[in-house]
């Protein structure tokens, strides 16, 4: 246990993974709901600052994989390692792990009874014990960076879908996570609002954020991903840099999936 997942570390401290250890490693992960096996042995290694796009048909297990990685769903078998430490070990407190992993959901899930600013500061203040004034300064800096400073006092229902999703991204970022999980964050948005959210993700990628992104936006995946992983039948059927996976897919299932996407005019 070289890197303890600690509750006491300062929120903003730069996390340095031990030399050579990946930011995230998933080994032989399976997940069943009742008798239904959604994930049947997923193996995935993510290096620091890598951006992995998970693609695959609806129901292929992309969301489940993300929810397992931040322990919102207990895994059935296999293990998840964050910066060289196993977080699926029984002795690990999931609440501590989740402070280091940001997740953004398809349906934003902002807290409707709190202003934008409160949404963003809740985690840092309550989970990380950052002083409120400090947390608010940090939140405003993030809001300014992503062009939302004037919405700090608004309640989420006053915001457009794109703005809400950007706030949800900022809420996750405010925890200074080592890893961001994005679960089809543009799927619920009107087409004209998708770009503003994708721009945020691009900026994060350029800033070196390690990200695991479940998405249906193939053009975006090709553009931003260091690697694309195609999920089918509960496992990663194929993973490769985008040019390779989109240009020369080797697995028959990948080819079929991409053909359908191309026929639909989305690639």
């Amino acid at each position: 246990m070289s890197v303890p997942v600690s509750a006491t570390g300062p929120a903003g401290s730069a996390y340095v993974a031990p030399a050579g250890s990946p930011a995230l490693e998933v080994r032989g992960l399976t997940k069943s709901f009742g008798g239904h096996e959604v994930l049947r042995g997923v193996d995935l290694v993510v290096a620091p600052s890598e951006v992995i796009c998970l693609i695959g048909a609806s129901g292929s297990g992309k969301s489940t994989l993300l929810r397992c990685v931040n322990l919102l769903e207990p895994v059935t078998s296999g293990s998840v390692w964050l910066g060289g430490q196993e977080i699926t070990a029984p002795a690990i407190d999931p609440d501590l792990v989740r402070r280091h992993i940001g997740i953004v959901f398809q349906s934003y899930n902002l807290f409707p009874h709190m202003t934008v600013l409160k949404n963003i500061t809740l985690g840092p203040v309550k989970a990380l014990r950052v002083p409120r004034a400090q947390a608010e300064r940090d939140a405003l800096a993030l809001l300014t960076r992503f062009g939302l400073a004037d919405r700090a006092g608004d309640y989420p229902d006053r915001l457009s879908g794109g703005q809400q999703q950007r706030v949800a991204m900022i809420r996750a970022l405010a925890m200074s996570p080592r890893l961001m999980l994005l679960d089809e964050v543009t799927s619920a948005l009107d087409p004209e609002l998708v770009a503003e959210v994708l721009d945020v993700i691009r900026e994060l990628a350029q800033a070196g954020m390690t990200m695991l992104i479940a998405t249906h936006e193939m053009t975006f995946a090709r553009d931003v991903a260091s690697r694309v992983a195609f999920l089918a039948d509960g496992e990663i059927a194929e993973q490769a840099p985008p040019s390779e996976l989109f240009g020369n897919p080797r697995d028959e299932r990948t080819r079929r999936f991409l053909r359908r996407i191309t026929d639909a005019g989305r690639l």
Partner: protein
Amino acid sequence: MTESPLDLTRRGSRLLGGGQGQARGVALSTASTIVVLAVFAALFLLAPGSAAVRHTFFSPSDMWHALIGDPAKGYYSVGAAIWLNIRMFLAAEAIILVAALLLAVIRQSTSPVLLPLRVVALAFVDVFRGVPTILVVYAVGFGLPALNLAVVSTQDPAVYGVLGLVLSYSAYVCEVYRAGINSVPLAQVSAARSLGLTHPQAMRYVILPQAVRTVIPPLLNDFISLQKDTALVSVLGAIEANRAAEIYSSTVFTYSSFVVAALLFLVLTIPLARFTDHLIARDRRRRLAGATV
């Protein structure tokens, strides 16, 4: 922004029938109300026993004397006694709001360690929701004094009454809170937990604030009921409005004093009922507004 006819219809007073042609609607509603009231008044006045009923239930002089009371003749003022109902109501309400929330949170907990508490909470709710409130009031009001304990057995009947009401209503209100907690989408829990909040923190900062907002109208509904049920404490001998009316009634052998008590209870409950309506209407407007976003 100009309002469409649809908006106007929606805003038009429900009580007055609203709709197209506000003035015509008001006139129609007024006329039909007068006709209905006149029919009822005629039925009442023309009934064979009308004079006797008026003397027994609606004697103005009896109603007046019951309202102000007369210590010299040995009867209490119903108007003064209602203050005890108000005080009992306010005390009970404050305790119930807290106790029921505690019960609800315990019942919604999932930790294996809390299982014994969950069992106790479940038993509490089952028992006190199932036993008629008046029997709970009896049990507390006569049971605790009979124990001959130092402080517990020497309280005023009103205190036992409040305790009885708290036991009974906490069980109901607990279930109202629980309905509210269950109405908060699970995605909100996921969002809170993904920020590293513990289960109690997620409950306190994310779930409960939303749950309580949702259940304010049904909570107020229960409290309207609680206001009336303070009259049950009369069985313990506390001189509240119902008991004062009973004493007056047994000295003059008419029921006009009870009508006074009934009217006073209406004066208390109707404002709360209208306030509840107002909150429900506001919620509905908000939901309609939210649906268009």
